């Protein structure tokens, strides 16, 4: 079994385990045990509780599923947008392609985190936690496409110059028919881009959350849970506070292994 496949199976096992933890009766990410704030591991709370008495294992499981689901959706949106823009730019007149790539360069000129911070801070004060989660991942999707679009543009340009494509156009294939045959040929380029975006988005969400600009409470998120590391009282009371960061690193390593190019 290859390392890539092993990583995929391990990640799937983690996802199933997290889903089981969440569906067990009485396991809600916002449910408080007011008798046991900052508690260590026990039969009732296997990974202890946070400062508000919420079960850490349940919150970590929910954060993992939310982050992965959001990142996968954002990655799918960004890859689809990049595929559309890159392909259309490559098959349009040269001027349109140049303008599209100029737009890509403008996006690429802005470091992600600054743009994310600007967009997040421009949201209304009354944004609900669920909306903040949706907006965070939508913003990631909206900002992630330019690098991917550039790669698709180059790939599509190569296809445009390919002999079979010249022949197809010479035989009178319409633009729509041509584009329909281009997209399957771009799949070897799009799939790695899709896989590469997932860990990047998980990481961006964690960094944004750790700065207090990510998903709002009481929804659990990696970034929000990393903020617990700032609480020295919590660090002294239990080692389980390191569970979210350990799990986050493990998931990022697994995603990295899945998206790695073969040697």
């Amino acid at each position: 079994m290859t390392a890539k496949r092993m990583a995929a199976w391990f990640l799937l096992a983690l996802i199933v385990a997290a889903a089981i933890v969440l569906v067990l009766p009485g396991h809600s990410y916002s449910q408080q045990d007011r008798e046991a704030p900052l508690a260590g591991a026990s039969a009732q709370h296997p990974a202890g509780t946070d400062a508000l008495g919420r079960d850490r294992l349940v919150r970590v499981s929910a954060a993992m599923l939310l982050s992965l689901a959001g990142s996968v959706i954002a990655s799918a949106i960004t890859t689809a947008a990049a595929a559309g823009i890159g392909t259309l730019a490559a098959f349009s007149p040269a001027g349109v392609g140049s303008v599209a790539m100029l737009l890509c360069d403008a996006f690429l000129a802005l470091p992600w985190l600054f743009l994310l911070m600007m967009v997040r801070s421009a949201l209304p004060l009354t944004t609900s936690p669920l909306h903040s989660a949706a907006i965070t991942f939508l913003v990631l999707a909206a900002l992630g496409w330019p690098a991917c679009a550039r790669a698709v543009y180059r790939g599509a340009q190569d296809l445009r110059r390919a002999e079979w494509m010249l022949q197809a156009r010479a035989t009178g294939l319409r633009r729509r028919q041509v584009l329909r045959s281009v997209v399957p040929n771009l799949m070897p380029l799009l799939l790695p881009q899709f896989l590469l975006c997932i860990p990047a988005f998980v990481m961006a969400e964690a960094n944004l959350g750790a700065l207090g600009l990510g998903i709002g409470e009481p929804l659990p998120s990696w970034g929000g849970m990393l903020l617990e590391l700032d609480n020295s009282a919590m660090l002294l009371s239990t080692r389980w506070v390191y569970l979210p960061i350990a799990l986050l690193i493990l998931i990022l390593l697994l995603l990295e292994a899945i998206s790695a190019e073969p040697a």
Partner: protein
Amino acid sequence: MSLALHGLQRLLRTFAILLIVAVGSTVLVRYAPGYLSDAREMDARYAGTVRTELAAEAERSQALGPLLASQIRGWMHGDFGVSRQYGVPVLELIEPRLANTGILLLQAIGLAWLLAGSTALLSSARKRPSLLWQIPATLLLAIPTAAMATLCLLANSGGPLLVLTLLLAARDFKLLDRILRKTWRDPHLLHARAQGLGPLAMLRAHVIPSIASDLRTLATLSIVTGLSALVPVEVIFSVPGLGQLAWNAALNRDLPILLAITMIMAVCVTFAGMLSEGEAEWKAV
């Protein structure tokens, strides 16, 4: 003549990118649903004054055209507006922090290149990628910057420079190792090696010249990565730099500061990109 024309073309492209960034950022901020809201509205002591200020701002920024024109004119003259939370010109807040951020970033990039360059040279000399270097680099890239900085702070070892250097070195190592591994296997280098040319002479005469354009691209990438990592590093280690100022502005919805810092970042990245791409293209002309 063609060299000058090419340079002019690149310069025009750079200015076009900056113009798009300026217009895009202003439009994004102006039409954001939270543009006319302020965190101080939650505080009864300031709510009245803030609402009056916001009403005045709404009046001022109603038409996008004049707003854009005055904004860009102001930036051209070094006027970045007035901070909403501090009530002082944005430039006064940015100037003293620019040096702190610049020095930290330059030191980190320099050290990271030294670390990544030496480890990549050692690693690429072997036939297969060495796990000794690959594992730490992969692990470092899997740790979010904020978490790495917090862990350093908790362990009471290392500071902002160490975190930034490690992050940049890990990323640069991965790319440099791949570039060098490919270059060492070029037929002319294999031939030179067979002829008995020493590794240092090969490096100086063949390897570095052939990867020069990749190195310039890597330098731009280092700047972009460093700028993105600045915010968590400066916030967690309390470094009074641009990243910390931007974070503070984001939390307090001080959009003039955020807009100004975003523009400064865009200028840095675009000019770095122009220099790295430009030189490679001029050589090809």
